[in-house]
Every structure is written in structure tokens, then in C-alpha cells.
């Protein structure tokens, strides 16, 4: 049974349909990337998953509970990090976490233990005694990650968790999330614009535009579906006396087009020509540096779907 499941989920504001018949599911232990332009309805969907907003129609189940009826059961199991997590400025980072722990009715000793460990994991131990007022944006973001983990949730819902973090900080946070997902079977729903990172860590992604899920699935599957014609495209880079290599490559059976790109060539073919290409390069006495099929990046997939919608 999926941990998060929506069926025809709809949210209407007075004259605007923010979420329109959204149906998707996230399985136990899965990291699901939620992509879409600003204002696509990602945050509204997340709010409905948490019962912070009432859906206008459709069905939502989180851990088997209905968020608008059994909000407490859902909130016990779900850790939510909003887009711009705010904290009580006059309290220290540690005190902020302690308040959240109390709201979750975690006993004091256990809370201190968890908070200590989490602050260590997000690299905030040193600054945990200072008032949040003095924190930078990235520090707040890291504190936010620690905060959602205090209650040891089964599901994490993260809205732009890496916004405002430096590349190293972002990578560390994403590693932490991936690690937790792997170790504890944590289910993660993550919305982000960092497509490169989403591609690296998410098992599946969903692209939402104008309140509708226009595509969902594993990144490579989405890529091959979106770019059927790219299936036999290759990139080759080689070194040596390169006289005539371009025309020789173009003359290979199956190669339909060739184009110089950087230090190598980009081949459009109608079948797998890699053995022939490799043989040709070796026969000409050149050394082959790389020969790879051109992967579609999530960015390309995203843009393609987004422009089509």
C-alpha cells in the first residue's frame, strides 16, 4: 500500500483551480521528487497532504489516514519542512527544537539525546546555543532539517530543502536524507528546483504544471519516453591524427548525422553503432577517450514537458 496516495485531488480557490485532479502515490522507502514551476500547485498539494488546507474534492491518504479528518495521526508520522522555515527568533536553535519536541510529547531525556545527535548530523552543534536571530539562511535551513527529524517521522515532506544552501551544505543535507531513507525506510516527498540533485537522489519524479501531474515516473523512463528519437544518439571523443575521421564516421552505415561538439562528435543514428565506431577509431590508430550514449538530463525532460503543457 502506498504511504502517500491521492486520488483526483482538487483544490479550488474562488476563481482559480490550484490543484486539478491530481492522482499519485509514493511507496514506502521511496524518494519522490515533486517538480514544477512556481505557482504550479506543489505547495498547495503538500498543505493538503498535511491537513493544513482542506481539499475541495478528491481523496488523500497519508500512512492510511485522512489528513483532514485524522490530522493528528498524520502529523505524528509526517515531518514537514516548509519553504522558508521560520523559528522563534528570541530562542536558541536548541530551544526551538526542544519546543517542537515538547509539542510532540517526547520526554525530556529522549529529546535531549535526539536533539544532540541531530544537531551534530546537520553540523549545527557549535551554533546551537545562539539565538536564531543571528542565524544565516543556510543555518536556518539546516536547523529546519534537524527539526523535522526530531519526531522521528515515517514520512518526510520537504518543500525546497536546499534553497539558500551553499553547494556543500546542500549536498550534505541531501546525503543525510538519502541515508535516512535507505537506513530507516523513510518515505520522502521532496519539491525542488535543483533538478540535478533531484535526478541524483529521487527514485521517481512527478512533474506538475498548472495543478496537473503531466508526467510521473523514474527519471530514465521519463527521459526515454520524452525523447524517443534520442535513443541511439552517441557522443564520441578521441585523440590522434584526426584527418578524415569526421567523414569516415558519417559514412558508417546507420549514422544519419554528425556534428562537432567541443572536443568530440555527436552522432545521430538509427541503431546501436558503438562497436563499429570503436573499431573504426582503433583502425585509424587513434585513441578512444570516450564513447557514450547521450543521457537525457532531468532538466531537458522537465523543460520539454513544461513547454508542451
Amino acid at each position, binding site marked *: 500500500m502506498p504511504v502517500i496516495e491521492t486520488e483526483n485531488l482538487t483544490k479550488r480557490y474562488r476563481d482559480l483551480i490550484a490543484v486539478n485532479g491530481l492522482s499519485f502515490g509514493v511507496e514506502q522507502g521511496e524518494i519522490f521528487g515533486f517538480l514544477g514551476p512556481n505557482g504550479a500547485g506543489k*505547495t498547495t498539494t503538500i*498543505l493538503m497532504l*498535511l491537513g*493544513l*488546507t*482542506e481539499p475541495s474534492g478528491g481523496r488523500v491518504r497519508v500512512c492510511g489516514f485522512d489528513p483532514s479528518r485524522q*490530522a*493528528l495521526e498524520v*502529523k*505524528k508520522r*509526517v*515531518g*514537514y519542512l*516548509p519553504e*522558508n*522555515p*521560520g*523559528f*522563534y*527568533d*528570541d530562542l536558541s536553535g536548541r530551544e526551538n527544537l526542544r*519546543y*517542537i519536541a*515538547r*509539542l*510532540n*510529547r517526547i520526554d525530556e531525556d529522549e529529546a535531549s539525546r535526539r536533539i544532540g545527535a541531530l544537531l551534530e548530523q546537520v553540523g549545527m552543534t557549535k551554533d546551537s546555543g545562539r539565538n536564531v536571530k543571528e542565524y544565516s539562511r543556510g543555518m536556518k535551513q539546516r536547523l*529546519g532539517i534537524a*527539526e523535522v527529524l526530531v*519526531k522521528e517521522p515515517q514520512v518526510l515532506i520537504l518543500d525546497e530543502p536546499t534553497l539558500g544552501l551553499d553547494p556543500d551544505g546542500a549536498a550534505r543535507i541531501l546525503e543525510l536524507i538519502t541515508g535516512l531513507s535507505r537506513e530507516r525506510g523513510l518515505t520522502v516527498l521532496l519539491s525542488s528546483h535543483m533538478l540535478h540533485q533531484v535526478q541524483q537522489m529521487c527514485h521517481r519524479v512527478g512533474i506538475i504544471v498548472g495543478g496537473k501531474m503531466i508526467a510521473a515516473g523514474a527519471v530514465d523512463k521519463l527521459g526515454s519516453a520524452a525523447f524517443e528519437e534520442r535513443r541511439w544518439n552517441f557522443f564520441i571523443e578521441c585523440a590522434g591524427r584526426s584527418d578524415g575521421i569526421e567523414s569516415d564516421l558519417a559514412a558508417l552505415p546507420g549514422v544519419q548525422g554528425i556534428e562537432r561538439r567541443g572536443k568530440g562528435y555527436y552522432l545521430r543514428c538509427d541503431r546501436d553503432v558503438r562497436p563499429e565506431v570503436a573499431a573504426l577509431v582503433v583502425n585509424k590508430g587513434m585513441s578512444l577517450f570516450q564513447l557514450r550514449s547521450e543521457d537525457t538530463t532531468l532538466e531537458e525532460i522537465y523543460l520539454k514537458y513544461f513547454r508542451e503543457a
Partner: protein
Amino acid sequence: MSVVFWKELADHFSSRRFMILLAIIVLTGVWAVYAAGQSIRQDAESAPAEYVFLLLLTSQSGGLLSLTSFLALLGPLVGIMLGFDAISGEYARGTLSRVLSQPIYRDSLINGKFLAGLATVSALWASILLLVIGLGIVLVGFPPNPEELWRMLIFTVIGIIYVGFWLALAMLFSLFLQRTVTAALASLALWLFLAIFTPLIAQIVAGMIVPDPTAPEEVVRQTDVASMIGRVSPTTLYEESVQIILNPTARVLGAALQEQTQGILLTPLALSQSLLLILPQFTTLIAIVAACFAICYIKFMRTEIRA
């Protein structure tokens, strides 16, 4: 709810805002009582032997307001100060969605906040009362009698409810306006209107309803109309209640004809009789606090939490 309550209470007590309020109120309170005590000592023969302590609270001297008037004026400020950023502040800091995604009922947040505000007000008001009693014992040389203590206690309760109204009102504005500054300004504007302009407007309107009174009946009618209109303001309700409860000899609110007062013995009223006299004011005060908070509660339960 208790978690929210204790956190908010700790916030209130440690905030600079509360320190300033405490300083202002204690200083003005002590000053007012001290001045009243001095003037009572100077003309001791005019003061009644009974209820000297109550006199300390109500008598004004040397152009200074009495303690009760001071509190009528400053009480709303306390309420507004404690309530105006209750919800809007959480919005502004972006903490609301984080707190509400924890496993607590949504109403426990607003209940906790309101109760913490009330508890703060109670602590403030109780400390003033204790100060007054202590100062009074030093000034007049003997402790208050039980009747005086009871009356002061009821005065404190009325005061807390009065400030509770302003607290609920400020929270209401802070919920509807969602911007801290706007909420504070709106509450202050309403305070000025109700505390200062309503009595003036009441006078003018009464003058229009009963123009040019000549007969004593008409004068009384005009005063009655004015005080009825004035009672839309909780400040009036508070002042009337306090006036009766702290002055056992007072037996009517507003004006009375000479025929009506004829034959009335000038003995002080029993506490229960004074209470009976202010029952309408007292219940109305409680009702408006409840109404304000109820609107707040319903609105908060239905609102969408986006930030």
C-alpha cells in the same frame, strides 16, 4: 495545550515589552496610591473610618488620576501589547505552519496563547494589588478588613476580564489583518475610539435625543441616554463596575432625582448588594470577551495556513 501555554508565558515574562509595561504600571500605580494616601492623611477627619483602603484606589489627588482610572487607561495597552502579534507574529516569522504541522490540535495553539496572555495580565494585576495593600498598610498604619479585601479581589477580577477583552480584540485583529503593525494600529485606534471618543459621542447623541433639558426629569433622562450609549465601550462598563464595587456607599449608577434619593439611608451597601448592582456590567464584560475570543477561534480553525 499546556506546552504552548508555558512557552507563551515564558515569552511574555522574558520579553522586553512586558518589562516596560510592568515598570510603567507599577510606577504610576505606586505614585497614584502614594499621592492618594498622603492626601487622606492630611485631612483624616473628612475620610470615613471605614474603607480607607478602597479610598486609596479610587481617590484622586493633586491633579493625578486615581489608580483605578490609571488602570482603565493603561489596561487596554497591556492587553493590546500582549495580543497584537499573537498570530500575525507567527505568520511574519513563518513559524505557524511548522508548529501546526506538529501533532497538536489547532485550537490548542490559540487557547494556549490566550490563556498565557490572561495569566500574564493576572500576574501583573495581582502584583499591583499586593503593592497597593503593602503601601496602604505603611501609609495608614493598619491592615485592610476582610470586606475591603473581598472588594479589592473582585476589582482585580473585573480588571483582568477588562484587559482580557483587549487581549482578545488584539488577537482578533492580529488574525484578520495578518500584519503585526496593522494589527497593533487597528487595536490602538479602536482603543482610542472606545475609551476617549465614545463618552463624547454619547454626550452629543444624548443632547440630540433630549434637547435642552429644563425639567429635572429631562436632565436625568439625558444623562441616562448618554450613559446607555456610553456603555458600548468596555471602558465605561469597567469604570462603572469599579466605581460601585470600590465605593460601598454608591447605590445608583448615573443621575437620580431628588425624590428618588429621599429617605435612602447613607449606610454602606453590603458586598452582595454592590455585586447585584454591577451584575449587568460584569456579565456584559464577560460576554464581549467570550464573543471576541469565539470569533477568533472560529476564524483560526477555518483559516488556511500557508506560511
